[in-house]
């Protein structure tokens, strides 16, 4: 069978071969001379045998049907069973065969159309747009942010700059992380919530900022405080975790503490020390 498939790939089955023979007659499928087709079909199978090719069972079955049709045709007209009424139509094997051929041809044509479509799809490209440059809305509609905010920022910078005496020395840090944890705990207990910036407001050196930051991380891990942020650019808020909700450590609630990327203490670290 596989051998045959290689050699006669053109014909996908007996119906395919039949269609080919019908086409050779160059007449309408309903006008085809089935007697001739039968002869040609059998001849084709003979040829296959001579080539030592296995003939698939489906072809033999079809040959049998064709020979039966042919034998009926050979009878004298008056002895032929000629159905007159519609209800006997289906007894006519010729009709049955032609019906199958017509049906098969339609699906073969449909398959050809699918094949065309398949090829076309290889030539159609989708749009692959880049991210649109919409930017963010620079300002809420109608209102503008007060320029005083900018002035405030300028003052802040200058103040810090002046505080940094030009001859500042590196001193040993007079505070520790555990110390800062204690004061943070007290601060949060007192105020319940405060902003990230406030934590560092009093810090006077980068070393102190780092200590406060580590203390905050530790308290977050211990689930004493939560970090949250209202929106993308909002200040990070530090809130006390209500006592009754405190689960036994170490069971942090990563959702609250690290869930939002902006609230992630690690990413905030880049900006944290600037209030020192």
């Amino acid at each position: 069978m596989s051998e045959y498939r290689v050699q006669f790939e053109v014909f996908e089955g007996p119906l395919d071969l039949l269609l080919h023979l019908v086409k050779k007659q160059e007449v309408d499928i309903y006008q085809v001379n089935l007697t001739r087709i039968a002869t040609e079909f059998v001849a084709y199978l003979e040829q296959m045998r001579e080539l030592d090719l296995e003939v698939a069972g489906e072809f033999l079955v079809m040959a049998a049907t064709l020979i039966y049709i042919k034998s009926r045709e050979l009878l004298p007209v008056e002895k032929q069973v000629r159905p007159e009424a519609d209800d006997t139509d289906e007894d006519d094997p010729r009709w049955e065969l032609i019906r199958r051929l017509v049906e098969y041809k339609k699906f073969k044509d449909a398959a050809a159309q699918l094949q065309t479509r398949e090829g076309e799809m290889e030539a159609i490209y989708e749009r692959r747009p880049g991210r649109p440059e919409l930017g963010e809305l620079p300002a809420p509609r109608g209102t503008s942010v007060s320029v005083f905010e900018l002035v405030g920022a300028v003052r802040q910078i200058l103040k810090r700059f002046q505080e940094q005496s030009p001859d500042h020395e590196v001193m040993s840090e007079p505070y520790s992380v555990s110390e800062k944890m204690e004061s943070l705990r007290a601060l949060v207990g007192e105020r319940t919530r405060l902003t990230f910036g406030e934590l560092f407001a009093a810090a006077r050196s980068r070393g102190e900022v780092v200590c406060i930051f580590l203390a905050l991380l530790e308290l977050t891990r211990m689930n004493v405080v939560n970090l949250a942020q209202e929106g993308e650019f909002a200040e990070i808020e530090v809130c006390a975790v209500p006592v009754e909700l405190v689960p036994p450590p170490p069971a942090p609630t990563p959702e609250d503490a690290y869930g939002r990327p902006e609230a992630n203490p690690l990413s905030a670290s880049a900006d944290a020390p600037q209030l020192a």
Partner: protein
Amino acid sequence: MELKFILESLLFTAPKPLSIGELREVLVKSATEEGAPPETAAFRKVPVEEIEAALNTLAAEHEVIARSYRLVCVAGAWQFVTQMECAPWLRTFVGVKNRPTRLTQPALETLAVIAYRQPATRAEIEQIRGVAVDGVMSTLKERGLIEEAGRAEVIGRPMQFTTTRAFLEYFGLRNLEDLPAADELRRIPVQRPEVLATVEGQPAPEPEQLSLEAAEAPVVEAPAVEPEPASTSKDSEEPPPPPDLPA
């Protein structure tokens, strides 16, 4: 702002096809978000039908302006795609499209039968194609183009098969109605001429309805190996046993 233009800009910006549901979601979300601009309110409760109508209008408009791209709907999702004529240059620019190898002739024929006659049993497919289809069927299943869809309520309860969403996507079809000549092939009316064979004849007035219902009649498993070749869905159509083949 007209709805169709908003939809167009969304489809133009989207890196993947968007369904009507997804488009609607953007419209609704835009209107209900905090600080939503006032113009978004108009489509806060836009009905699905309105979106669909706007999309069809858009597609028709793009057909008219005939640019190098067009708006299409494939398996319910809308997207902009290029015209085929630009392929030689896009192939250089984007690269050869990453698609699976093309289907073989038997696979395409089998797929066509399933596509038009779904749900179809293996026996029905073999009846139409006149050959066994086991190998082809498993290829099609592996490629996700067809899937099992319950059993037919006939003797033997054979498995039925339908095409998948991936089938529509593979051929770029909007839905099954979009299949070429769908109406004709779903129920093929094969008309019998009054007289067959070599004798002159005119087409009979009464068409044969080869409908889905007929196909669901009891069928023999794998008729290809059966001695009776023309065993159709209709038992009465079986021809008399064939004589022996000449040696």
